């Protein structure tokens, strides 16, 4: 039985907005393609990986690491760095691509993904790889950790920001909303909750499995300033993430395309995770990027 879904319906609740429409139409520039090639290198090396949830995430992570966050690959423990927690740990291929590209570890190491002695596991682990702030993979943990980090920074009078990147399926977890309530209470202006709203979770559409709409209203009700955006538009996200804030935490709801850049993987639950990827499939992934 095929699990392929019909093309996304722009009338469904999660897609019926201009940001989702823009995310579908967004072309990929050279850098976005180069970062995706790094992801494919890892997929090739590990013969497996969460493809869809990583490809939707590339421009979000690119905005943070290229333009928004203060960080220093040569000094990953720099106390004044901004903290970036990838709470949706299964999207780690996007994190690894950005960390490798910024020189946190040698490019070639990305090919060791998921191998026995690798530092690059199927979910990221703190202390193994420079630049990984928290061990994630069990969903719904990152926002509480970010809350603790932001409170520690406030206690010490530090001015760095904390960015917590979550998946849309992930925010089914009740712990996310426990953390959101606490962040609203503490009015942590330097904390940003980023949602990779790619409209699909493992089984199918979020609209079907656990509808999230009205998503912006939910974050707003918890005390966040809320911005919806095209999650493949680096310039727009950079502007939103660097705009002056009004004393509230920010929830950036990034409308994205799961599997972005690989036509047959886009919006396909079958491409949420793939194992035993063979060389022909890998070549097809590279080719798809060039054809984009």
């Amino acid at each position, binding site marked *: 039985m095929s699990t392929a879904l019909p093309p996304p319906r722009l009338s469904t609740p999660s897609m019926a907005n201009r940001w989702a429409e823009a995310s579908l139409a967004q072309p990929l520039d050279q850098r976005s393609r180069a970062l995706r090639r790094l992801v494919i290198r890892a997929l090739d090396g590990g013969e497996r990986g969460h493809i869809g949830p990583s490809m939707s995430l590339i421009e979000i992570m690119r905005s943070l690491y290229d333009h928004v966050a203060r960080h220093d690959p040569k000094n990953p423990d720099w106390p004044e760095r901004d903290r970036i927690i990838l709470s949706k740990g299964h999207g780690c291929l996007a994190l690894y691509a950005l960390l490798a590209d910024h020189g946190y570890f040698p490019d070639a190491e990305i090919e060791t993904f998921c191998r026995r002695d690798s530092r690059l596991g199927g979910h990221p*682990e*703190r*202390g193994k790889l420079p630049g990984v*702030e*928290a*061990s994630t*993979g*069990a969903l*719904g*943990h990152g*926002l*509480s*950790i*970010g*809350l*603790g*980090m*932001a*409170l*520690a*920074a406030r*206690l*010490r009078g530090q001015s760095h920001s904390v960015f917590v990147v979550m998946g849309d399926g992930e925010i089914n977890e*009740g*712990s996310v909303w*426990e*953390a959101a*309530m*606490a962040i609203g209470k503490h009015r942590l202006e330097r904390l940003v909750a980023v949602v990779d709203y790619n409209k699909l979770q493992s089984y199918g559409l979020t609209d079907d499995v656990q509808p999230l709409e009205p998503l912006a209203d939910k974050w707003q009700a918890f005390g966040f300033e809320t911005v919806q955006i095209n999650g493949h538009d680096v310039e727009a996200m950079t502007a939103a993430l660097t705009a002056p804030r009004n004393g509230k935490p920010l929830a950036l709801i990034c409308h994205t395309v799961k599997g972005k850049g690989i036509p047959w993987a886009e919006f396909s639950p079958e491409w949420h995770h793939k194992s035993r990827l063979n060389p022909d499939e890998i070549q097809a992934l590279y080719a798809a990027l060039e054809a984009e």
Partner: protein
Amino acid sequence: MRKAALNTAYLLAQQDERVVFIGSDLGAGTLAGMKETLPERFFMEGIAEQNLVGMAAGMAMEGLVPFVNTIATFLTRRCFEQIAVDLCLQNLPVRLIANGGGVVYAPLGSTHLALEDIGILRALPNITILAPSDAKEMIAAVKATASVPGPVYIRLGKGGDPVIFGADETFAIGKASLKKAFAGTSDARRRVGIISTGVMTHRCLQTVAALTGQGLDVAVLHLATLKPLDEQAIRDLAAGSDLLVTVEEHCPHGGLHSAVLETLHAPTAGPLMPVGPVLRLSLPDAFPTAYGSQEQLLELAGLDPDGITRSILAAAG
């Protein structure tokens, strides 16, 4: 015991600016002094245990030492994954102060009892598990956590327990305390080695007179640290005993009895040794159907001094 633990945490906070306190929705006035004098390090964050533990992890990653306090069963069942992944996997110095270990909350029913907390936490790497016997030992134990780099679980009794921690006793994490030694190796009487933890130890000490009166030579070993275990002390006691007995306010699985058997059958160091029967005195493998008081539930389970005495006499023949 609860006040002793919290006041000691406050004392540590006064001495060390890395120490913070995080409560859930504790009783009005809890640590009012700390809230007054160190308000920036006093957090009361609501009925959200998963968030409490995750938040503590985030603080610990930044170099703080959070003490998290709420009811034992909510602190273990509700957020087990946060303890495993956020605290143990990342080996962070968060201290969990667990009110009402065992059947302290007897009148409130099974939802409030911590029957398996030690068993489930013992299964996790990197965690230290403490179950002091009384308020004096609690103070020493909480102070001793300062040297522990990873997470610590501290099980509290009801409070008001008789003090058996000696005035000149020192507390070291991972070290057992021999509260009562055997009379001597030349003694021909059968030797019963009792191993106990938490507030059960003073009950065990209360059995000594009756057991001695029945012609037994009795030793009582108190384990305030359940992980890491003082394996040598357990092995030494076992070697000198005709009968070993474990006594715990915990379900039969995964707790003190399991830990002792694991030590004797599969020591992490040293040779394997022959192991005789080890009498297990614990709570039953059941959710209690009665309410009443902690004492009454312990009595129903045969864990009051008379019940312990009867069971040992029956087993010792």
